[in-house]
């Protein structure tokens, strides 16, 4: 428990502040509309649901302002870069941008539900008070004319007795934009569930652009001024507390109280969303501008297990270890951008990505590059964008875990280490690296083999064999492979990979690994980096908590996860 707090205190604080602001805005707006004199007559018709609707509307404005910010990738990368003097904990929060985006979306859904239910009650009450013929206060208020020349301003948006609420909804700006916004929101949410996102990314990506309708609708939602409050002069002439009881005599000339006059509230949503919309538009323009820069493909390598390596060059491109880029291939799909981690080191004069066939787009791309006699398709690149792996060299001891294709950010790190050794860079804070690569099939090893073989040789030559400890785990093993390995037990190199380090079969026993590391480095800060599935993240996180000591001077494990 103590370790959890140490690792997550900033997230908890941030979320508490956000929730607190939501609650504060809701309660503040609720009380304002429940007690203000301006809305005394409005409350006579509508009751507390007016305050409910307005309070949820304010929360909707607040959350709609926040929702665009976590997806401005360039802004976050910029903050990460400028914040290099900030503590590790603060920068780690930028990794959780998508989680925050989802939380804000859930809050928007909740407040949308509250807002719609409150307005359903409001419309029903307006409709009933329009139908009422008993001469009560509500019926008199409702009969205030919409015709400005008759000297009165209306309160009830339902003008005529036979007007249905459905008619008012679909003919008023607020109603129509509300319906459009809600349908857009529902479609965005149903296509953004984990299952749809992972299995059919294009459905999610294209449907999510309905947010444009949501934002536009939100901007013009309040233009009609349907929420009416009494004007200042009208209150001065006859305060509702004094005049409400004498409503039957409002028409009499000798009565001191005159008929109250109402005015609509000006729209305020646009004030909340203007700045984030401008930021997001700048973000998209920047992405577009960067994508138009020419990309030269210098080398194309087809590896076994349908893995394609592309080595490219782009003017003005500079990267850090473990960053990712977005790639677009106009000949396959003009609008789709897919993220890939860079597998080259910053010290190299090109940048490369390894693409595995895992869906429509990737399979088409690999097929397009496999054609021997047609020209190479044009590629557009946006990025690079930063993730947690940039922080690897900030830790004294780093534990890198990659599952399958998840090894790609670590390929970049290991290559970078190789170059740093060649240049004898003494600024390297990292003293030891433990690298675990967990894979299902042997074919996937081959493209990484060269790198590990050369690293092995490099370490031997420099006499720093202890710097990099790597273990390879084959989880999709069968008795044939194991039998073969057992027969060749005495050989110096592994039969599957040709490396000096033997391949292990099955999954790693994390408890053993972590306790060994904790005992070997009792006073260090250890960074654990994972690029892999959620279940593995859970077990690693648990181990990090279990083996971090409560004393901050002793061994501490910090967990970082790539979030694609």
């Amino acid at each position: 428990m103590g370790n959890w707090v140490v690792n997550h205190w900033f997230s908890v604080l941030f979320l508490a502040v956000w929730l607190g602001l939501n609650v504060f805005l809701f309660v503040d707006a609720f009380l304002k509309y429940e007690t203000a004199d301006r809305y005394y007559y409005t409350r006579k018709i509508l009751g507390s649901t007016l305050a409910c609707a307005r309070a949820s509307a304010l929360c909707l404005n607040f959350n709609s302002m926040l929702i665009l910010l976590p997806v401005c990738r360039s802004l976050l990368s910029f903050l990460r870069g400028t914040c290099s003097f900030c503590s590790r904990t603060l920068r780690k929060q930028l990794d959780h941008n998508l989680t925050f985006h989802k939380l804000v979306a859930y809050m928007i859904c909740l407040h949308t539900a509250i807002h719609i239910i409150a307005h359903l009650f409001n419309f029903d009450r307006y409709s009933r008070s329009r139908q009422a013929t008993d001469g009560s206060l509500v019926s008199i208020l409702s009969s205030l004319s919409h015709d400005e020349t008759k000297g009165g301003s209306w309160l009830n948006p339902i003008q005529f007795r036979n007007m249905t609420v459905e008619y008012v909804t679909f003919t008023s700006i607020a109603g129509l934009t509300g319906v459009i916004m809600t349908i857009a929101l529902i479609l965005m949410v149903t296509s953004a569930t984990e299952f749809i996102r992972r299995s059919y990314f294009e459905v999610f990506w294209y449907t999510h652009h309905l947010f444009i309708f949501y934002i536009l609708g939100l901007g013009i939602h309040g233009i009609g001024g349907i929420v009416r409050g009494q004007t200042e002069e009208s209150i001065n002439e006859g305060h509702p507390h004094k005049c409400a009881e004498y409503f039957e005599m409002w028409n009499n000339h000798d009565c001191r109280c005159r008929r109250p006059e109402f005015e609509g509230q000006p729209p305020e949503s646009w004030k909340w969303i203007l700045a984030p919309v401008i930021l997001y538009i700048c973000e998209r323009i920047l992405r577009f501008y960067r994508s138009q820069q020419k990309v030269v493909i210098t080398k194309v390598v087809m590896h076994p297990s349908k893995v394609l390596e592309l080595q490219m060059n782009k003017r003005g491109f500079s990267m850090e270890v473990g960053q990712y880029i977005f790639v677009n291939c106009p000949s396959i799909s003009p609008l789709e951008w897919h993220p890939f981690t860079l597998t080259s080191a910053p010290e190299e004069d090109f940048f490369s990505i390894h693409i595995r066939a895992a869906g429509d787009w990737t399979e088409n791309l690999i097929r397009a590059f496999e054609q021997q006699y047609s020209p190479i398709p044009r590629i557009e690149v946006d990025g690079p964008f930063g993730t947690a792996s940039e922080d690897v060299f900030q830790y004294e001891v780093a534990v890198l875990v990659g599952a399958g294709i998840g090894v790609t950010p670590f390929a970049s790190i290991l290559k970078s280490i190789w170059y740093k050794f060649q240049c004898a860079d003494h600024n390297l804070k990292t003293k030891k690296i433990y690298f675990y690569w967990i894979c299902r099939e042997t074919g996937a090893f081959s493209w990484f083999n060269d790198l590990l073989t050369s690293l092995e040789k490099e370490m031997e030559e420099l006499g720093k064999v202890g710097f990099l400890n790597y273990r390879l785990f084959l989880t999709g093993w069968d008795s044939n492979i194991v039998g073969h390995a057992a027969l060749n037990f005495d050989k110096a190199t592994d039969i599957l990979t040709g490396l000096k380090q033997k391949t292990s079969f099955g999954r790693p026993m994390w408890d053993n690994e972590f306790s060994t590391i904790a005992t070997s480095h009792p006073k260090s800060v250890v960074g654990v980096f994972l690029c892999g599935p959620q279940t593995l993240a859970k077990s690693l996180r648990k181990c990090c908590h279990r083996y971090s000591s409560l004393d901050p001077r002793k061994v501490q494990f910090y967990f970082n996860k790539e979030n694609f």
Partner: protein
Amino acid sequence: MGQIEWAMWANEQALASGLILITGGIVATAGRFTQWYFGAYSIVAGVFVCLLEYPRGKRKKGSTMERWGQKYMTSVVKLFGPLTRNYYVRAVLHLLLSVPAGFLLATILGTACLAIASGIYLLVSVPPAHRGKRTQNQTQVAKCVCGVKCAVRSVCAFHVCKWSSVSRLIDLIPSSCQALIWAVALFSRGHPHDPWL
């Protein structure tokens, strides 16, 4: 885009619509809005849609994540055989269910969402290679519609004549049989892949 199984999204959309129908129905009934009985209908329709759509169908390619506890509902839904397996039937069913809820403002959102889900299911029912051309399915549907029309006309004629002549009865039999045969042919075609694990 050709490999996208839109029916999976239609399933999520229909499930969400069911929940929205239930919520709208509860609000309308609890608030006793005008014509609140549509709200009561909406609750029932929403519950039915949720139960029908809760079991997630099996993907053609790749592994499918089952929803928690879906195996209990799957056994019930499977009992109806081709009626629930066929996406045409689902599309038409959802469209018909959504119509009555459209008369009340509180549930009109549920109507719109369910109609969208129905539209996606309808799109899925027509294979992409045959879109734009009259397919065997469409011919079957057209025949079925004709058959149903014949049957309806026969029944009307029956009522009008009120057993007045034997020749009318004899006319009634072939058209009803035709309608029945075409209905069975359409429904038993089923859907290309089995939608459950």
